[in-house]
């Protein structure tokens, strides 16, 4: 029992240290991070402008979503998108193809811990730098956002859940590289599917009914649309907690999948390189 507690403690220690060094490292690249954050803004601003234009043409709303709500949706979108940035499957491809995984395998720690802790540390930096951008967007687009305390709490949890769901999804996707080194095509398809069914493109209620039906059975909605809706929308207490439960379910399923794939995959790994 004591040994178990010690293991948990050292793992926790690792997360804290890795996260902290990453914060310090990334703070050095403030300008680069800003360019990157601003480049990422084009996507939501374009969608926001398009839907605002349509809403205005139709007397203020589309499918019951008002211009102010669109603004709120796409501003919160920027934060949720930020939380959705995790180690990419292309990173896994590079890691496996170039033999970079060898060093990670020698450590007495699953490489996923390293990704999770590192990106979590980076998030602290990007969110801090994001705050002024959000303020500018707020002034420019005049959103309607009036969340309850419970909604804020659920949102805070849900963006962490989103981070875990997406890490596990993209990691298991990336591990396909263990079997074949030409994976770009599979990634592109998966990411396009995610784009359409996660709420990143448009708020899901604007999609046709059948697409919303399909989205209910996939993890994408829970890592993107749900957190935004929790804060911006008007969900009941049951829906909020139910959403968190769905997130938990997907975290368990996808982590399980990642673990299983990893067990089989790592046996196939043969280091390349010098």
């Amino acid at each position, binding site marked *: 029992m004591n040994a178990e507690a010690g293991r948990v403690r050292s793992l926790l220690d690792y997360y804290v240290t890795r996260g902290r060094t990453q914060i310090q490292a990334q703070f050095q*690249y403030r*300008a*680069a*991070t800003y*360019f*990157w954050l*601003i*480049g*990422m*803004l*084009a*996507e939501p*601003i*374009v969608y926001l*402008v*398009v839907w605002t*234009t*349509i809403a205005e*043409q*139709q007397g203020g709303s*589309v*499918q019951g979503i008002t211009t102010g709500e669109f603004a709120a949706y796409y501003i919160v979108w920027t934060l949720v998108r930020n939380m959705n940035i995790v180690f990419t499957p292309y990173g896994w491809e590079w890691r496996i193809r170039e033999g970079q995984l060898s060093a990670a395998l020698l450590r007495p720690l699953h490489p996923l811990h390293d990704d999770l802790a590192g990106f979590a540390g980076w998030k602290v930096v990007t969110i801090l730098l994001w705050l002024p951008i959000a303020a500018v967007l707020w002034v*420019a687009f005049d959103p309607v956002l009036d969340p309850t305390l419970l909604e804020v709490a659920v949102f805070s949890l849900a963006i962490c859940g989103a981070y875990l769901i997406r890490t596990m999804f993209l990691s298991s996707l990336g591990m396909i590289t263990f079997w074949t080194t*030409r994976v*770009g*095509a599979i990634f*592109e*398809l998966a990411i*396009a599917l995610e*784009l*359409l069914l996660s709420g990143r*493109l*448009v708020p899901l209620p*604007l*999609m*046709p009914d059948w697409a919303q039906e399909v989205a209910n059975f996939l993890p994408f909605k829970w890592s993107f649309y749900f957190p935004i809706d929790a804060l911006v929308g008007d969900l009941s207490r049951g829906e909020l907690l139910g959403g968190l439960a769905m997130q938990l379910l997907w975290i368990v399923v996808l982590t399980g999948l990642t673990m299983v794939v990893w067990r089989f995959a790592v046996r196939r790994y043969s280091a390349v390189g010098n």
Partner: protein
Amino acid sequence: MRRTALLGWLFFRIGSMNELQYRANFLLQLLQSAVAVGTALVVLALVYSHTEELNGWSESELLVVMGIQILLGGVIRMTIQPNMQRLMEEVRDGKLDFALTKPEDSQVLVSIRDVRIWQAVDIFSGAAVLAYGVSGLERGVTVSDVLLFFALLGVGAVLIYCFWLIVATLSFWVVDTWSILELLDGVYQTGRWPVSIYPLWLRLGVTFIVPIAFAITVPAEALTSRLEWSTVALAVGFSAALFVATRYWWRFGLRRYSGASA
């Protein structure tokens, strides 16, 4: 001029032969292009399932805009971007020496050395979307519309080239230019919609700071009969001025180059 064209053709042949070795990339590019076009069409279908027209633009007219954006994106990634990226890398590594010591104008040389022929897939898929859009236009297009369109597309390509070179020249002062590229990639997405839908500050930004409006919306206006001659004059004047300015800017930046090799 003849010499430049000959040199360009030579680099194109070498680049093509190099790329032809990697034929699987063609299939990958085909798939990527299909996914990108498919997603764009889905967005358009969604938008027009909720409205008849977007700020006065019908669905076919927006297909024209989208087609031009995809087509021009292909041109950029096939010719402009690889050259500019290589320029930035070579400035950092000091390898630009090899280009500068050649008996040819340095700006010409750094602009034509690389070509990624598989990116031409996007040119064709963009052209297909464009043709489909044009076929759905109610007012039809005349021969002079088409000629004007091609001329303005050329002007747009020149503008985008100048803009890229201006940014790439920054690498003589700034080391980290990767993040600037990320920024440009994001901003280019705004060209998928007619710039008239954007709020004023953004419209000015994508017209004069990043010349997307001139490169994409203006040629689209030629095909959708909403072009005014003052716009044509402005586009041509602006691109000529920018072209000259770019040349001076390049020479100015080049003086900063000190070579970092060995």
